[in-house]
């Protein structure tokens, strides 16, 4: 089974990298991009276990290492590898 972890900046936290990407889009001629927020995507390959327990484990990993909860939110998705 896999855990898919999305880490994003909290609302209200400035994201200069996202702004730079948005500017690049306008330089490239893409229109209608109102805002860009950059985040991280982390994939964990887990030994099979109860999905609820796996989700709880990965959330604790987020709290303790993967995310800095002062500025970041995280979302965990548990999926079957097959």
């Amino acid at each position: 089974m896999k855990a898919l972890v999305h880490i994003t900046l909290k609302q209200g936290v400035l994201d200069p990298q996202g702004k730079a990407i948005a500017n690049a889009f306008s330089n490239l001629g893409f229109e209608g991009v109102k805002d860009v927020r950059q985040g991280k995507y982390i994939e964990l390959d887990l030994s099979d276990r109860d999905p609820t327990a796996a989700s709880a484990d990965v959330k604790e990993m987020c709290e303790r290492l993967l995310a800095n909860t002062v500025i970041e939110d995280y979302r965990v998705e548990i999926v079957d590898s097959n």
Partner: protein
Amino acid sequence: MKAAVIVFPGSNCDRDLAVALQQSMGRPPHRVWHRETSLPDVDLIAVPGGFSYGDYLRSGAMAAHSPIMAEVVRRAEAGVAILGICNGFQVLTEAGLLPGVLMRNRDLRFVCRDVHLRVEQRDSIFCRSYADNQVIRIPVAHHDGNYFLNGEDLKRIESEGRVAFRYCDEDGTVSEEANPNGSLKNIAGVLSASRRILGLMPHPERLSDPVLGGNDGRGMFDSLVSALA
């Protein structure tokens, strides 16, 4: 005074910090590798600048969970003084010893130059050799120095007098132009609630000898010796 400098893979200011400490202390500090799980009996633990663990995940995040840091946190709880400079500041915030976080610089550039700092809190073991509101010139060299914390925590550290230094111009005026990285309220250095832990982005060890072009950083190490010796 006895001191230890922690060394992580990717630390690159540990030697400069040891030299600056030795100059004020009169003896060399211990150098302690990150894999150690114990520390000698010391009055000060210094966490140096650099790029510990290649800044993987977030600056300081991996180092904050290295084996030695559990002991550093224990010593901090016992009241041992702790100084974190640049990457060391990032490590201390990631370890939960100081509030806030150091984000990517506002303009996304690595900034490497001398800046001016206003001493906001002479009343700490780190700053007693300076005068209140003294302006000192100290170099910065970082990509992730944009200090941020939430509104409530900001109010708390301001009201408790825990902002140790602010970026300012040569005359001591705190302005947006004098802010090299976008830090909230021009904050360059922060004290813990106990006032025994300081983290700052600028590098006092890099201007602690006139031969290096300035001596304004030496006051911090002299302050520590006068407070802890």
